[in-house]
Structure formats: structure tokens, C-alpha cells
């Protein structure tokens, strides 16, 4: 299984049926392919749609139905479109059950840095700061390392997206939960040992006696 699929399948298990969820552009977008229709999850995009569907077939795109990256999407039956103030009212006001975002770094305090690399990459925070501040749950979906360099670190060196502690970190190696005591290793990816995870993590990890393998069946888990 490719690393993206491991992350996307595991994040899908984390979503709650019948809730509103925002998926970030890139790897998080692909989580939607592992959600089942019966999960009843509505995807929100910050450009102003509640109930965003997959990209339409070639030739059936519509120029005024797009996602936050400007790509063509569809609207699921029962979808609604809203303006930017309502879109961010949904996000900031706590009406979004979960946001799934990529990450550049996450640290022992559960702080996320995902929007800039000073002097090199300054794209702007877009909606990321509002999403991490306002969503009920924040799930970071990212590769465990960047070209071999650990991304789960003692303290973020890059500018933070928010000082809020994220809810869960899902990588191609592990599921890690930030807690009051620190980062707890909850699960490991198939064919990955606890040792493997510790070798690519510079942050201190709390390792319980039993670290089960990830459940990668498609669909949201009932909670």
C-alpha cells in the first residue's frame, strides 16, 4: 500500500458518521475516497460549500463549482453553498466536527506548523489558522518524515499555525495522540515496529505496553 493510502485510510476511520468535515488540499483531500456513502459525512470547503463531492467526469466540469484550490468539484444532493463569512463562521464557530490538514512539523506540545518556511516558502495561511483554531477536532495527516528528516520534533522550529493542541497525528508510520503528559504512541502502521517509529521521531514519545496495528478498512468508524 502506498504511504498516502495508509494515511488516508486511517484518517477516514477517525471521522464520525453524519458530521461536517474539512479536508485540506493535497494528501488530506484523498481521505474522501475511503469514506462510504452510508457514513453520511459532509465535506466542507472554505471557499463556501457544504456537501462537496468528487471531481466531475471529464467534460462535465462547471467553472463556478470549485474547491479551495480552484479545482472542479461536484455538489452532493442536499449540498449548500455559502459566502466566505458564513463559511468561516462554520469553521470558527465550532460547527465543523473535524479538520484534516497536512503538516510541516508537530511538536511535543501538540502544536502544528504547516503554513510557512521563512525566507523560502511564504504562501500565506489561507484558512489553516481558522481551521486549527475553530474545528472541534484537528487531525494532522502527513508523512512521518520529509526526505528522511523527522517532522515530529521536540519543539516546532517553523512558525506555528495555532497554539491549540491538535487532536491526533496520523502518519505512514504511526498514530500519535498529544495529551497533557505528552505525545502518546497509539498505533503503528502495518509492518512497522515501535522501534522503527522511535528511530524516525525526535520528539519524546510515550509508548504504552501494547501498540496495536492501524485499522485500515475503508469507511468512518462508528463512534
Amino acid at each position, binding site marked *: 500500500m502506498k504511504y498516502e493510502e495508509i494515511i488516508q485510510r486511517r484518517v477516514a476511520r477517525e471521522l464520525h458518521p453524519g458530521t461536517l468535515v474539512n479536508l485540506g488540499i493535497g494528501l488530506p483531500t484523498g481521505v474522501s475516497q475511503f469514506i462510504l456513502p452510508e457514513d453520511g459525512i459532509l465535506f466542507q470547503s472554505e471557499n463556501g*460549500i457544504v456537501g462537496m463531492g468528487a471531481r466531475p467526469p471529464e467534460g462535465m466540469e462547471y467553472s463556478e463549482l470549485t474547491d479551495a484550490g*480552484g479545482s472542479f468539484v461536484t455538489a452532493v444532493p442536499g449540498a449548500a453553498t455559502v459566502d466566505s463569512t458564513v463559511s468561516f463562521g462554520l469553521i*470558527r464557530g465550532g460547527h465543523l466536527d473535524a479538520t484534516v490538514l497536512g503538516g510541516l512539523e508537530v511538536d511535543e506540545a501538540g502544536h502544528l506548523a504547516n503554513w510557512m518556511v521563512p525566507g523560502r516558502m*511564504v504562501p500565506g495561511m*489561507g*484558512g489553516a*489558522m481558522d481551521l486549527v483554531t475553530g474545528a472541534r477536532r484537528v487531525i494532522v495527516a502527513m508523512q512521518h518524515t520529509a526526505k528522511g528528516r523527522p517532522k515530529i520534533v521536540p519543539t516546532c522550529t517553523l512558525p506555528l499555525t495555532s497554539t491549540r493542541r491538535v487532536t491526533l497525528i496520523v502518519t505512514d508510520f504511526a498514530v500519535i495522540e498529544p495529551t497533557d503528559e505528552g505525545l502518546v504512541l497509539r498505533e503503528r502502521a502495518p509492518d512497522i515496529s515501535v522501534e522503527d517509529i522511535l528511530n524516525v521521531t525526535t520528539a519524546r514519545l510515550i509508548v504504552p505496553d501494547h501498540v496495536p496495528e492501524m485499522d485500515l478498512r475503508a469507511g468512518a468508524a462508528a463512534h
Partner: protein
Amino acid sequence: MKHAISPAAAAALIPDGAILMIGGFMGVGSPHRLIDAIVAADKRGLTVIANDTAMPGVGIGKLIAARCVSRVIASHIGLNPETQKCMMAGEIKVELVPQGTLAERIRAAGFGLGGVLTKTGLGTVAAEGQRIIDIDGDPWLYAPPLTADFALLACERADYNGNLSYQLTATNFNPVMAMAGAIVICEPREILPVGAVPPDAVNTPGVLVDHLIERASR
């Protein structure tokens, strides 16, 4: 009743150095023909307040490429390398604002409010140089109103009273900017007779709109 004017006539209303709010999200819901006319009129020193600067060759991206803009207030410039290049070279001053805060700053201006208090950006570089206001021991980031000389909008349908109706994700920042611009110019796809846009379908009442752009010839 409002007479629709040409994109060039609308562009002629805008002086060099004007502060413009421009609707749209990655070019979706932007007034494209009006932007082309501003580029053709070779305007200089404009401030653009918008969600993003789109992509090279698209929407606001054309204003960036034509060097019409000296200052940008936006939430995201990542998909337009030209904006980033101009920012690094010091040719364009860029102020990055979280997207929800940008929308609320515009709303505050248009709704007669003294600004908004938000948790977004607290403790991050977005709060640097900003005021933190303590409310009963709880810190909030103060975001001041954002006004503009012009709001340049796009919509799906208008009538000749200036009532505007938007479509799908082309809505985005257009309705809130309609409240905040001193002079509001909208480029509809279609302009219908007064009465043909049902009152319930009007998202922006015509009283806010100063000029309509005539529809594209076909």
C-alpha cells in the same frame, strides 16, 4: 435604474493608487473583464484586498503580472509564484491575513462595527504588532475594519436596479465586499429587467451597487 457601462468606462473611474477589494477565490467569482480593462488602462500603485492573487494569467494574477499592484492584503498567495517573487523582491508589499479574519475585517467595515475579536492567530506571527484585548481574563486578537475605495465584484444575475444574485462557489467574498467598498462595481453574467430577479434570490440589494458592467457581446 442603473445603466450598464463598459469595462473600460468602469476602469476609467479607478485612479492610480486606489484601494480595491476584488471578489473571487482562485479566480472563481472575480470580475474578469473589468480586470482586463484595468490592465489595459495600465493602472499603477493599486492596493488589492482579496482572498488570494489567483494564478499567473488568471484574474487578479493578471494585475500582478502587469505590475498594476503595489500592495496586497490577502490570505493566500501560494498558487501565484509571481506574487511571491514580487514580495521577495520588495516590489509588492504583502500583508497576509487569516482567511476568516480577512472576511470579518471586511464585514466589520461594511456593517458599521469597530472591528472584531478572534482567537485565530493568537500566539502566532499573525498576531505580531496586533492588539491583544483582555475580556474578563480571556485574551482575544483585535482585527480592525478594512475599507476600500472600490469593491469590484462578479455575480451570476443582476437586474437594472443593481440587485445581485450569486452562484455556487463564485459567491465567496463578493457579498461581504459589496457592503464595504465606497464605490461598488459589479460584472454580472446576465442583466435582467427589474423584477425578473425574485426578491428571495437577491443576495446583495441594489442600493449598495453603484455601477454594473454591461454583459459580454456575443
